[in-house]
């Protein structure tokens, strides 16, 4: 069993049935390690396994075989809500990463409690008498937090999240994911649904929060430009395999055209590109 700190994925296998009949084995003996504090960016085409990898780490998909450790903890033995104690996650769709029917303050409270989820007892027994949340003290803390991040949500704590714009929702989702200083931050194409202005705002916030917390981060993106300008390390996936791995220094010599050419060369030499491989990412 691995006890290395940071994120470690070893000998991971995962596949899914194809429509009709047949089976597609996406990952076979896939391994990847990410030292603590590293901001790892993952790129690849549709079906390469980027989002699937994130889902397997988060536990929303269960691996067929293999081990996933975070800070030495065997995540592969835990269910998704149990892994959430150490993992903050921002989804692709701004509506998915928040509860639109709850207020900004209520959403923040949920995230704040992530690493110590409410027990049945806290709802029904004596502790419930001091347990009304979010209370005035919580709201004061959230206002300071949002103002410190220069987010225009500090005065909108009582508004339902469904009333916020996509960029504001995704900013809130990002703040929620980093509350409680998680050991790992998973960013699943979290700017894909945003306009360029909101994308720039959310990415700036992402960089600031990751640096501020020093947390390990795994970001999946379709944008090569984004992949080349954020993070400490870039890896490229194709058909569940690692076909490129560059550290920050090596990445300095890359440009979008060169990455596209390398990707094209790699998949041509592998001869594995398929036209129907779109379901996994």
């Amino acid at each position, binding site marked *: 069993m691995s006890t290395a700190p940071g994120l470690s994925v070893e000998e991971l296998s995962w596949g899914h049935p194809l429509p009709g009949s047949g089976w597609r084995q996406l990952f076979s003996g896939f391994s990847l390690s990410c030292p603590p504090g590293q901001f790892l960016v993952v790129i690849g085409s549709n079906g390469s396994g980027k989002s699937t990898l994130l889902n397997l780490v988060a536990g929303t998909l269960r691996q067929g075989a293999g081990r996933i450790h975070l800070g030495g903890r065997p995540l592969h033995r835990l269910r998704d*809500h149990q892994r959430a104690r150490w993992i903050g996650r921002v989804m692709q769709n701004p509506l998915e990463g928040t*509860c639109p029917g*709850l207020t900004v303050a209520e959403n923040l409270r949920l995230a704040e409690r992530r690493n110590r989820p409410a027990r049945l007892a806290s709802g029904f027994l004596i502790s419930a008498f001091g347990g009304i*949340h979010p209370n005035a003290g919580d709201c004061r803390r959230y206002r300071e937090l949002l103002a410190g991040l220069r987010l225009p949500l500090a005065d909108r704590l009582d508004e339902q999240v469904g009333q916020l714009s996509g960029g504001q929702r995704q900013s809130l989702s990002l703040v929620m994911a980093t509350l409680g200083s998680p050991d790992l931050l998973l960013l699943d194409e979290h700017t894909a649904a945003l306009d360029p202005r909101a994308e720039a705002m959310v990415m700036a916030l992402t960089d600031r929060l990751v640096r501020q917390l020093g947390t390990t981060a795994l970001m999946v993106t379709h944008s090569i430009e984004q992949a080349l300008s954020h993070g400490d390390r870039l890896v490229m996936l194709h058909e569940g395999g690692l076909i490129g791995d560059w550290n920050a220094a090596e990445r300095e010599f890359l440009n979008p055209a060169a990455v596209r050419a390398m990707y094209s060369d790699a998949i041509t030499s592998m001869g594995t590109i398929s036209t129907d491989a779109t379901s996994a990412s």
Partner: protein
Amino acid sequence: MFSLWIGAYDQGLAYAGLALGTYLTLRVLNFPDLTVDGSFALGGGTAAVLISQGAPVPVALGLAILFGCLAGTVTGLIHTRLGVNDLFAGILTTTGLYSITLRLMGRSNIPLSETPAGILALPDLGLGLDGQWAVGLTLATLGMILLISFLLATDFGLSLRALGNNPTMARANGINQRRGLTVGIAAANGLVALAGALVATYQGFADVTMGIGSLILGLGMVIIGESVLRPRSLPWALLAVGVGAILFRTMIAIALQLGLEPVDLKLATALLLLIALAFGRLRIPGLSADQGRQEQ
């Protein structure tokens, strides 16, 4: 004429637990729970058996709540552990509950001849027995609303609301969906069983078929309350549901006064709800055609 209104008020409050339980499952948990048809009759049957055998009314009501919670737990476990569809899980439980309630009661109908001593001890406000029931049921309903408001405002309540609002996000924030849903459905059915017990005690009998159409009744009460008061916060929403229960029973009393045959009541209720679903802006999770529940 006044006895008609006070009677409708009393009946509405006796049914308030059904409306609150329906609100909890449909609006808070986003779970269309058909168990209520079975747990309402189970609550009524339990109370009738115990009271007719001399048990104190509070004990009978407490056991009715407990049995309702157990029924809800069974539905929750069938859905979350066995992966059975939400509607089908409720139908399975409620089908089984019919036999269980009948076994419990020993026969299909149990009459209760005496008014509970607790009700007789209350001030009658110059309205006689109906007034005493009104005082008792008002206190019971307000107590239920306060308790549920309080619980839903705690961290645990917030977790339940998050599960109904966005289960994916709730799980990503460490909330155990299986346990949360099961506990929520159990609590809702406890309320419904309490309503069944209160209705049986108020009307003086329990019948094994008294739960048929309970979900539709509860839904109608929730819709009327929300339409009339348009609540913007949770405590007001719960109060609106209680008011909806009274208004619903009042409408039934008026309809009966105007000559509607009692045998046609359930048909009239179903048609009214269908009109609201088809032409109104009403959207019910799992029941409206354009909405699907996100499965775990």
